[in-house]
């Protein structure tokens, strides 16, 4: 149902959507039932001359069951929703499939930047690919991301993946996604992070393996493959992609 507005481009996007629909059906039923009941009662018991009010305390057994039975049914619906919610949550946030690739996602006021291993497949070496604002990933590949923040709380959100995770300064938070649809999708920051919060956009570009390999080639310097950086903190941003810095 989201597709009309927003594509679903990760393996777990549909499970979130299905949970949404399950909840919508269950609570929609109760909403309509309660509203209908209310309007029927308002109409049926509108003041009429000569019809006295009934004296009801709410302790009468035959009337009380009109409350207790729906009450029990609501509880059962809640149980269904809880089971659905936890199973979706467990698959997205707790049970990570084995990673094919790892990417570091860095939030700072007010841009997203990314670090991926270069051709040597090892992070924190000189051939790492760093990019600002654009994350290039391979379709049908399981990525783990290590999310960090350099200053305040940000939130790494990719609506098309149904993915959201806050980035906290001082911690590395791990998550995963597996894109399954080629295309370009928005990255948002969804946690108020100051003046440029509304400008803190990024894009995630899901590519075919061939396109991704070509991109990888364009952005690496084979001479430094496998060489650990001399001073990691001072690594120059030599391999940055053409992505503009959004400020």
């Amino acid at each position: 149902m989201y597709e009309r507005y927003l594509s679903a481009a990760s393996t777990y996007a549909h499970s979130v959507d299905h949970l949404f629909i399950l909840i919508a059906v269950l609570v929609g039923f109760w909403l309509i039932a309660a509203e209908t009941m209310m309007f029927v009662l308002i109409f049926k018991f509108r003041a009429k001359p000569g019809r006295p009010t009934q004296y009801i305390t709410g302790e009468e057994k035959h009337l009380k069951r009109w409350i207790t039975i729906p009450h029990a049914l609501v509880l059962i619906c809640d149980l269904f929703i809880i089971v659905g919610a936890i199973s979706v949550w467990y698959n997205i946030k707790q049970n990570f499939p084995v990673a094919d690739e790892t990417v570091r996602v860095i939030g700072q006021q007010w841009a997203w930047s990314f670090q991926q291993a270069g051709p040597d497949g090892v992070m924190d070496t000189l051939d790492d690919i760093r990019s600002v604002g654009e994350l290039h990933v391979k379709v049908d590949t399981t990525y783990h991301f290590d999310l960090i923040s350099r200053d305040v709380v940000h939130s790494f959100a990719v609506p098309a993946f149904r993915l959201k995770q806050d980035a906290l300064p001082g911690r590395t938070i791990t998550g995963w996604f597996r894109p399954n649809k080629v295309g370009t999708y928005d990255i948002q920051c969804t946690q108020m992070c100051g003046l440029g919060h509304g400008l803190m956009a990024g894009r995630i570009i899901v590519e075919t393996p061939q396109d991704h390999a070509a991109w990888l080639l364009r952005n690496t310097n084979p001479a430094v493959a496998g060489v650990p950086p001399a001073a990691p903190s001072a690594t120059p941003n030599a391999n940055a992609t053409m992505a503009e810095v959004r400020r």
Partner: protein
Amino acid sequence: MSTHATVGTHMGHDEPGMFKKYFWSTDHKVIAMQYLFTGMAMALIGGFFAYVFRMQLGFPNHNVPGYGLVTPGRYNALVTMHGSIMIFWVAMPVLIAAFGNFLIPLMVGCDDMAFPRINRLSYQIFLFSAILLLSSFLVKGGAFGGAWTAYPPLSANGAYNLTPLGSVLWLVAVALEFVAFLLGGINFTVTVMNSRAPGMKMYDIPLVIWMIVLASVIFMASAGPLIAGAVMLLFDQTMSTGFYDPTRGGDPLLWQHLFWFFGHPEVYVVLLPAMGIVAEVIAVFARKKIFGYKTVLYTTWAVGFLSFVVWAHHQFVAGIDPRMANIFSITTLMISVPITEMIFLYIATLYGGSITLDTPMLWALGFIAEFLIGGVTGIFLGSSGTDIYLHDTYFVIAHFHYTFVPIAIIAVFAGITFWYPKMFGTMLNETLGKIHFWGTVIPFNFIFIPLFITGTAGDQRRVYSYAQFAEQSRPALQHLRTTSTIALLVMLSFQFVFLINFFWSLRNGKKAGPNPWRSATLEWTVPSPPPHGNFAELPTVYRGPYEYGLPGRVEDFAPQNVPD
């Protein structure tokens, strides 16, 4: 004036002077009016802010009439202040302080609050906090723009938020406002527990009083951690401590826990008085006893208790241990059970009644109809799986406005239109009242239903422009935002109908008499408006508050203070 501090000696005193009467009074009714009018003034300011930033969202980058261009910094400050003002300086003072102060002594049958001077102090601190908050717009750097949740390190460090003075003023204002309501809460609880009329047993207390007391208790139990957190944040801001600074061993998540440990119960702190007001109005205009009075109370206690164990559903994706989300998902969905039960009981109260749709009843029924939508959409967010996606989108905004607007606008109007005759001695105009009702409730839905859709389509919160986001800047979504803004303009313009009605009726309204709605509770046994000291002779209570539709009587109701 002679010295008098003891309860019960107010009657028969000289009329105090103008200043003493309206600005330095210890009379609970005057303090209630102070809170009411301050709250209404703050609502106008908060509403104006909503108008400005909705204009920016509906018609991006145009000059907003009456304001000017909305820059990102101003936008952040406006949404932050809108949220803070509407919750802390509108919902709290009007629902708890204004109605609590006005109704508690009148409905439990005593002459004033237990601690009248603490009551006066409470309002003075509240007024000071409001002035302090608004003054933050005038300082260098402008007002705080880090959202009403004020997550550190953004809120803690002037280098990050760029409003070093504004954020301090915001924090101090919020903390002072809490002090005001702690004083008020103590007063309410003590008054209801100790100053009830003879014969008024626990289960004879009207629901609105019960709910205000329970709300006060919940507030007092939850505000402590946040005040402690606020002090630590203030130290971080002004004395360079590092409570929330991870580079110096602090933890930004600590604030989030302290904030939401208060923040979620706070929802119920404002919900309960609103539910209480609605209960009173429904009982009177359906001429019915509340269906299962005791069950309503038990569910209220259950809600109050559960409200303390759901806070982390605001933090599912905040970086807490993911296993915690499962526990808080369960508790959050469980709280829907007592709330549903309460709503069912209210609807059941209509059964067998003789319902008249006067303005207060329209507002009360409107509350139930709209709050139901707010309630059920909360399930999407309490369920951790869907919250991953919906968190911090406009779905959240639409959801909590479907709870807070019914609470702080619709139920408040139910209360004001219902007790206006008692407060001022005249009746409001019914025709204007109904125009105002429909002119508020219909556009309200047109504001927030489009926002449910933009939220499910991925619109994130607190963003002044979607130009940077390809998926969000499509025309279909912009049309929905514009619709929402236009509906807001309609809704705001209909509020002038209310203001005209309110002030016109003060002088020109029909004289109300002591009991225009034929209500059974104690406040309707005294003249309208009630004199200083309330009761000429303190009443004795013989029965519960909702004895309507009694068979075999001339009148269809039995006032609480009339013996059989």
